[in-house]
């Protein structure tokens, strides 16, 4: 389906004469086609100010499309990170005695907060705060987390009381507080101004931002729609940095990473996508405008605005000049917009009509992926997808195999999940994002992890980290679980 959209996009671009090798827009789209989203975004975002008015709209559209995919990717990375980090921290917690970790309680609290397990998060934050071995100045971070959990449990007074005790003398603390306010919607606390003040302080001291600070800023910038500041921050950041290093005894170093970074990146790219697409949609170029309409429909739907999505998709479907494949995909989105707006029957009818009218594998795959996203059980879609997947392996059926793999991952049938996604994988280039949809790779890595095929999972993340360095937030925890779970004798052989 992405291929169809890319073809449309390239056609739009070809309407303007240019030198392919030198044209940043075309190079950006080529990078996008190879799933090198970060490289593509960097190139196009840098190019944007110098683009003439004719190409600016196309650049906005390209940026919007890429941000949309990047947001989806980081969303799945975020989910995988929560699962794996929780497993790792839980195992760390079982170590008792003088070499035990004290910070593990804090990071368990943080991860549980991200996972929405609020009462459990509260318990671990409290344990961290009660730990006499933790320095008082380190406890402020936990207070912010604990207060956030209280707030999300509707204990607002308790939350405000606790937040008010946090010392705001360090940029990390100030931005953590700003991110917490932003997250729970307390815009009157002026989180953006707090971030600015923290950055000024940092600059005066001549320090570079820590990963904690960067994560907080991305959170605030995303929620405030500050795309330019966010891009600038991400460009400069080392996203594979660890959040905290603890050395309980000699030769024992524990490095903590936080899945919140991946969640914030997802949110940021989602917001950026909508912003870029809105600009592209305002263009006078009919082709750009049409494609932007479709992607805005997707974006609004994905990021919680089904009513806006419905308006966009309605307009897109009713126009005459769009390819049928994209129109059908828009109809899938419409079906789920109905569902999200409470009309399940309309959603089912629309999906049923589509199933009867079009048996194109990629469309069925999109239906199934949407079902998974919204936890919408549609047995007919699964049956039809399974029948299609029987036709074999390879590229043409890659998307349907991915969708089925993701479906079985959701259903916790990990063996089937791995088997389907394996069938969808380009075996000649098994882990490379240039040849495999990184979204599929993340899900395959998670299915492998849950099947205890740890090294398979690590290899996928290792390759992905070359393009998406924030994947480090998962890798180290995965290595930790693997080291504790592996049961091998210690053998090595010459090959």
């Amino acid at each position, binding site marked *: 389906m992405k291929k169809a959209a890319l073809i449309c996009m390239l056609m739009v671009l070809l309407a303007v004469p240019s030198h392919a090798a030198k044209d940043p827009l075309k190079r950006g789209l080529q990078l996008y086609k190879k799933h090198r989203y970060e490289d593509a975004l960097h190139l196009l975002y840098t190019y944007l100010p110098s683009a003439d008015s004719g190409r600016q709209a196309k650049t906005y559209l390209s940026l919007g499309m890429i941000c949309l995919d990047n947001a989806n990717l980081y969303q799945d990375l975020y989910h995988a990170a929560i699962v794996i980090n929780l497993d790792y921290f839980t195992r760390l917690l079982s170590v008792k005695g003088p070499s035990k970790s004290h910070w593990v309680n804090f990071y368990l609290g943080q991860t549980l907060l991200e996972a929405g397990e609020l009462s459990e998060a509260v318990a671990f934050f409290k344990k961290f705060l009660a730990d006499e071995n933790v320095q008082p100045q380190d406890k402020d971070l936990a207070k912010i987390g604990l207060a956030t959990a209280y707030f999300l449990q509707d204990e607002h007074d308790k939350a405000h009381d606790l937040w008010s005790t946090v010392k705001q003398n360090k940029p990390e603390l100030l931005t953590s507080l700003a991110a917490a306010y932003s997250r729970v919607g307390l815009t009157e606390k002026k989180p953006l101004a707090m971030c600015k003040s923290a950055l000024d302080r940092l600059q005066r001291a001549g320090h570079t931002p820590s990963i904690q600070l960067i994560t907080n800023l991305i959170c605030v910038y995303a929620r405030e729609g500050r795309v330019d500041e966010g891009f600038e921050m991400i460009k400069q950041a080392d996203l594979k940095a660890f959040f905290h290093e603890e050395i309980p005894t000699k030769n*024992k170093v524990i490095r903590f990473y936080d899945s919140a970074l991946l969640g914030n990146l997802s949110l940021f790219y989602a917001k950026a996508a909508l912003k870029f697409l809105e600009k592209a949609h305002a263009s006078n170029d009919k082709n750009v405008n049409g494609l932007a309409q479709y992607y805005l429909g997707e974006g609004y739907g994905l990021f919680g605005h089904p009513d806006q999505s419905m308006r966009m998709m309605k307009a897109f479907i009713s126009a005459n000049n769009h390819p049928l494949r994209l129109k059908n995909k828009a109809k899938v989105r419409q079906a789920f917009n109905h569902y999200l707006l409470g009309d399940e029957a309309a959603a089912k009818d629309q999906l049923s009509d589509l199933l009867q009218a079009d048996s194109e594998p990629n469309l069925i795959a999109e239906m199934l992926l949407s079902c998974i996203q919204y936890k919408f059980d549609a047995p007919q879609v699964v049956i039809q997808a399974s029948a299609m997947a029987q036709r074999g392996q390879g590229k043409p059926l890659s998307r349907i195999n991915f969708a089925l793999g993701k479906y079985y991952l959701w259903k916790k049938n990990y063996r089937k999940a791995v088997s389907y996604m394996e069938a969808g994988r380009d075996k000649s280039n*098994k882990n490379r994002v240039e040849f495999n949809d990184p979204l599929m790779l993340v899900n395959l890595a998670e299915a492998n992890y849950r099947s205890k095929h740890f090294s398979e999972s690590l290899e996928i993340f290792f390759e992905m980290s070359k393009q998406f360095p924030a994947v480090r937030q998962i890798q180290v925890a995965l290595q930790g679980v693997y080291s504790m779970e592996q*049961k091998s004798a210690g053998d090595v052989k010459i*090959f």
Partner: protein
Amino acid sequence: MKRLASVLTIFFGVFVMLLPQAGALTKDDGNPNGGALNYGEYGRPATLDPITSNDMIALRISELIFNGLVGIDEKQEIVADLAERWDISENGRMYTFYLRKDVTWHAKEGEDPMPFTADDVIFTYNIMMHPETITPLKVRYEFIDAVTKIDDYTVEFTLKRPILNALAKFSFKIIPKHGPQNSEFLAREDPFVQNPIGTGPYLLKNITAEREIILVANENYFKGRPHIDKVIARPFADQNIMGQALMFNAIDMIVLVNHRDIPQLQGDKRFVLQPYNALSYSFFGFNTRNPTLADKRVRKAFTYALNRKEMLDSFFQGQGTIISGPYAPGSWAYNLDVQPLPYDPGKAVELLNEAGFVKGADGIMEKNGKKLSLTIKVPIAKESEAVKRVILAFRNYLSKIGVEINAEFQEWLAWKEDIFLHHDFDLMFASWVFDDSADISSLFHSAEIGPWKNNFGAFTNAEVDGLIVESKLTLDHEKRRTINRRLHEIIADENPYTFLWTLTNYAAFNKKLRRVAIHPYKFFSFADDWFIPESEQR
């Protein structure tokens, strides 16, 4: 009447043949027995026993012939094997194994099968640890203090100290007391190493003149007779020919698919391509007994001189990952912060100059009048087209910085003797494969220098020795992980090897083989459950 008698005799004969053999155990999974599995190997093993062998080909064979006290199932959990249960003392130092009483050794022709007992376990341990037994296993089992026979079916191991993952280490394969000729130690001259007897699902029938290893189903296998009647390991010196053999149905399975064949196999509906993540990597090893190569600067210069990415892309279609140190990237021990040295021939020349080498009139580096000319030894079993190209490229890259390299391709066994026994080499090309434990102690600890030991390049570093010992002593997973990260860092800097890449591993097999699960390291661990539908047996 005579005719009727003949018919009855034939009928009775056929009836008897159809009956399971006396004492034969069948699996109750409902899958049929019969058929043969021909699989392609990329060489032939030097020995077939689990103690003296140190290559993957022999490991795969011994997985079919032998059992350990414990095994590992498909979910990576430790399960009972020759021991039906065990107790571990509270202090973690005493492991008591209660052995199965229904296990017999493969019987030699005309002999009754002999029972497996505690004596065999003690014999295996003693022979493995005997100073004159040449085995890479010794270093793994130095943590055992004593083994005691409690009775015929109970053995007790006393550990010097509790260690991490001790139970998994009791998966070492047990050999029979009545097997080797020499009951004290196991030498490579002992007939047992070529004609082993085990308890496993398959027994060795014979080795043909073409060096095919023929295994047949053990009718008395204690877990039930394996489904497939016969397993034949066929050696192929050239991986390209192995791929063709599969495609023309001459063999049914390839344990490691040549990367060039992957696209074709992926598109062929007759075959299944199954990834299995063996933790492996390829490297150029340096013999530090050579004074020139004892200099770290020279070793590093060689690494800087190679464009590994170009080699990987050109010769392996980019199907792998450049590595920076002694672990595979899929391992928990890989230090993600250590980056591979970049391709930088200028830096390589600079390092050689620092080490006292200057370019002579013929363009070759020399020091004190002696040219920098070295020999690389490569096993012929590795002489696939891609490996040949790697060696040629290696020579070319090094010639660009003024180093002369002579490549010597050797027959597999001769190569192993030169590298592991005589240490007669300057440079060598090979690959290591690890199980999940990422134990590099036998590769880089100075106590592992000696005949048939894995530290063939005589690498010595006091900090590495200390860290390896500390990692073995600790009971803390995170501490061991920290130590491994540090080991990665030091070894990457010391450069005892030029670490190259880890390649993706695929097995390929004909779809007639069913219920195929592959152990990522030992490969055939679950092969007794594999089967071929009757309609496809030939």
